[in-house]
């Protein structure tokens, strides 16, 4: 489990995180929602130990963040970090050389799943396929937790569908996923939990099935209540 407890952070004088708390379970998909500037990416960076914070703590399976944490978690940014002149195959080789947790078998499966070819140049790919390669590079690592920043943004509907399908497949298996999005429609039935953020605060954290079961509300109904007060 990833536990974020009372996390606070300032950029200069501006308070960007004002005491954020939530949990993300292994084997579940937790969705951080909120408009730009709500603090989603900053939270992900904090979990990855890429940014310092003023107060609060983050526990991974009960342990404070340390230099071994990255063996358990990977962060998939919203844009690919590989050089555009590389082929997909070269990008995979780079990952293989760099990460001991690289899972070659899963990488090959993902290539097939996304119908990508190793000899294609990253610069020649469509936006949708670039997003798939980006996702593949993170999903192929043998880690327990995957953080994905806006995996659905700015790509066509068919690519979005294909990416959504990966979440229900064995390729994600029983890992814990934290995903940020501002577009809920694609994944309303895929996520276990939603964390609604605004202005550096958690406005509500809820199980999507429970809210449907106990309150007869859709995720969007709850979002309306929370954001349009």
């Amino acid at each position: 489990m990833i536990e974020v407890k009372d996390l606070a952070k300032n950029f200069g004088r501006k308070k960007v995180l004002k005491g954020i708390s939530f949990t993300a379970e292994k084997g579940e998909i937790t969705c951080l929602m909120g408009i730009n500037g709500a603090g989603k990416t900053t939270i992900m960076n904090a979990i990855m130990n890429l940014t310092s914070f003023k107060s609060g703590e983050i526990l991974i399976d009960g342990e404070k963040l340390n230099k071994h944490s990255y063996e358990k978690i990977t962060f998939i940014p919203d844009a690919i970090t590989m050089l555009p002149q590389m082929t997909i195959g070269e990008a995979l080789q780079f990952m293989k050389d760099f990460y001991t947790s690289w899972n070659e078998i899963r990488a090959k499966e993902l290539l097939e799943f996304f119908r990508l070819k190793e000899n294609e140049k990253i610069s020649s790919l469509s936006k949708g396929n670039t997003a798939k390669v980006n996702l593949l590079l993170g999903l192929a690592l043998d880690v327990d937790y995957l953080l994905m920043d806006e995996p659905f943004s700015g790509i066509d509907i068919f690519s979005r569908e294909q990416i959504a399908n990966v979440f229900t497949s064995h390729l994600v298996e029983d890992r814990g996923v934290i995903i940020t999005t501002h577009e809920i429609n694609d994944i309303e039935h895929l996520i276990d939990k939603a964390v609604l953020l605004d202005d550096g605060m958690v406005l509500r954290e809820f199980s999507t099935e429970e809210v449907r079961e106990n309150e007869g509300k859709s995720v969007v109904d709850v979002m309306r209540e929370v954001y349009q007060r």
Partner: protein
Amino acid sequence: MKVTFNKRDPVYVQVVRHFKEQIATGHFEPGQEIPSRRELATQLKINPNTAQRAYKEMEEAGLIYTEGNSPSKITKNEKVIDNVREELILEAVNNFVSAIRPIHVPIDEVVGLIKEKYHDDEEG
């Protein structure tokens, strides 16, 4: 398998309902193998935990059964299947009655209309 989910009922409830409909209409036959929870999640594009929950509910209700490590199957218990059929019929009738009652139509007229419509659709 394709299901159009609404957004306000629990997804697992909707999955169970879909299975009941398939059982009642005979699309799922007694003893027929059903997809694994992962396959179901992929087919219906739903969370695997939700698929698991639906299977757990159906297992407890005796709609499906699992022997050892083999795939789960639709129940062969005729009584269970009859109950599912009855439940769905009653539910449909209840929905119909609560929709028609506020309009204050004499029951004979309603029955006549039902008979007419029922056969119309059969021929069409």
